């Protein structure tokens, strides 16, 4: 097979791991791709350089292709996502000082989103002005943090200020007292714990189980012109996910990711998210087996219902107006059809539906699949709410600001 050159942008975050492994383990090459990785300094650069074609593809925050397609970005180029880079990986980390206040208000320190949020709400109610950092406005982090705060009785923007900072600068900002907490992907939570005495208060896996975070995004026109490259790339990410999910490979994956060209971080810290063995602060280690899911639970499948969930949150926080046309554009960004087409030659099991309800599955179980069987992990929201994409308007209405 002739090799095709493919340039991909990424940010130094653990969930660039499947892109990195696709290159470093020769997985992309086996699919006929000469994959070049370019590390960027901001999500804004990823967005702009992907939009003007400096990058063929890029690691993106899941809502980014939606924002581009809905015309919310400066270069309004329609973008699509045919594959997801994994589930989970984010956490909410707070300063030592704020953690002391939360613990005084009853936070148990077990990473459960409910009690941690309730304790934070009591700290806020006592009159403390807090500032939290997220990595980008249209990011899973922003929506997760806001979901957690709102469901805990804290109104974002009114009761708590939310600012934007790039991932690598968050631990320092916390240490310097500029922010009291942040929501970010690994390794930046663990680095905050290791270098700034911070505490991981809760994790994405507790706020919304088995939820997506990063995707591979690309211009819709480029994908149309290069269907074989898109398929090869989706296969490479899927196969990298299988390799990464094998516990026997965690140490090697951590070593590869820790290198200066990628995360440029301590190998032992990088390993925490891969193994789910998190030091949540003060040397207390907790095992969060679903902290980052690179393969299981159809982790790489771009559910259209998940695109619509992000859309619902964009509406909720006033970034886009609710309309059937907008919902249609949002759902069309996640290309489950391209995913299925790409995996067909592998004979891999793929979900039969493009939509699923989240918030009802309490334990792992099977879903309808083609070419085999698929087991999905639990998908509960911490506040017990159910998200049914067939009742999208009602879901949006129920979250409307008072």
């Amino acid at each position: 097979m002739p090799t095709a050159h493919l340039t991909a942008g990424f940010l130094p975050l653990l969930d660039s791991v499947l892109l990195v492994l696709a290159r470093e383990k020769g997985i992309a090459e086996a699919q006929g791709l000469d994959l070049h990785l370019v590390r960027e300094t901001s999500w804004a650069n990823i967005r702009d350089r992907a939009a003007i074609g400096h990058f063929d593809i890029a690691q993106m925050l899941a809502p980014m292709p939606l924002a581009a397609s809905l015309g919310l970005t400066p270069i309004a180029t329609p973008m699509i996502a045919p594959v997801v880079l994994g589930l989970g990986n984010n956490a909410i980390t707070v300063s030592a000082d704020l953690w002391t206040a939360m613990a005084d208000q009853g936070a148990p320190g077990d990473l459960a989103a409910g009690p941690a949020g309730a304790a934070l709400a009591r700290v806020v109610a006592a009159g403390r002005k807090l500032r939290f950092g997220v990595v980008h406005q249209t990011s899973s982090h922003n929506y997760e943090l806001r979901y957690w705060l709102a469901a805990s009785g804290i109104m974002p923007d009114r009761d708590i200020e939310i600012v934007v900072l790039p991932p690598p600068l968050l631990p320092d900002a916390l240490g310097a007292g500029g922010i009291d907490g942040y929501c970010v992907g690994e390794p930046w939570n663990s680095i905050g714990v290791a270098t700034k005495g911070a505490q991981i208060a809760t994790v994405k896996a507790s706020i919304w189980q088995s939820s997506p975070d990063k995707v591979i995004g690309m211009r819709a026109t480029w994908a149309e012109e290069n269907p074989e490259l898109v398929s090869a790339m989706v296969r490479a990410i899927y196969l990298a996910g299988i390799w990464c999910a094998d516990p026997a490979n965690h140490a090697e994956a951590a070593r590869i990711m820790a290198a200066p060209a990628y995360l440029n971080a301590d190998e032992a810290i990088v390993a925490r998210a891969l193994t789910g063995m998190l030091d949540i602060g003060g040397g207390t280690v907790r095992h969060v087996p679903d902290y980052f899911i690179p393969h299981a639970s159809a982790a790489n499948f771009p559910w259209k219902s998940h695109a619509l969930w992000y859309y619902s949150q964009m509406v909720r926080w006033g970034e886009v107006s609710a309309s059937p046309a907008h919902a249609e554009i949002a759902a069309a960004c996640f290309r489950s059809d391209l995913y299925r087409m790409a995996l067909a030659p592998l004979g891999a099991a793929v979900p039969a539906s493009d939509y699923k309800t989240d918030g009802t599955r309490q334990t792992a179980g099977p879903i309808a699949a083609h070419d085999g069987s698929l087991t999905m992990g639990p998908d509960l929201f911490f506040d017990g709410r159910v998200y049914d994409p067939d009742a999208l308007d009602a879901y949006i209405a129920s979250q409307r600001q008072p």
Partner: protein
Amino acid sequence: MPSPDLSILIIDENRIRASIIEDGLREAGYGRVAVIHDVNEVARTIQATMPDVVFIDLENPKRDTLEHFFSLSRAIQRPIAMFVDRSDGAMIEKAVEAGVSAYVVDGLKKERVKPILDMAISRFNAFSRLTRELEQARSELEDRKIIEQAKGILMKTRGLAEAEAYALLRSTAMNQNRRLVDIAQSLVTAADLLGP
């Protein structure tokens, strides 16, 4: 036609590049140019200078921070969006290639902003060229030093004249299909290891 009344803000951690752009704009007749090196100062500066156009270098990791700040309408009196016109794809591409991003207040006419963007883009490109040339000159100088050292070693240990020493290095490099400076470096390293 320049619009000297427009207020321009440059955000660049690279002080030399920032002053090159500032000089260019001032020479072109723009009198209201402010420069900051840290995005954290942006709130204060925006209130003080009310910029119509804001530049930030793409290496700056705080672009996301800046954009979020612009999106908070209460923070500034006039909305600021990226670039002058979404339809002007070529201009955006030129800017990103040069390594700069521009934000412009809402409602400003394209023809008023274009000369400012052109100036910033050309100065960014000029700065990159300068940096490249400087880097090249520096490495050439380093190379020459190593070759001089290697020549000296050959002249001393083998009693060669300077021209002969150079010819020997050159023919060795050609025979081994390697660069002259690499052969010279090997020789210098070997001589260091073997001692005086």
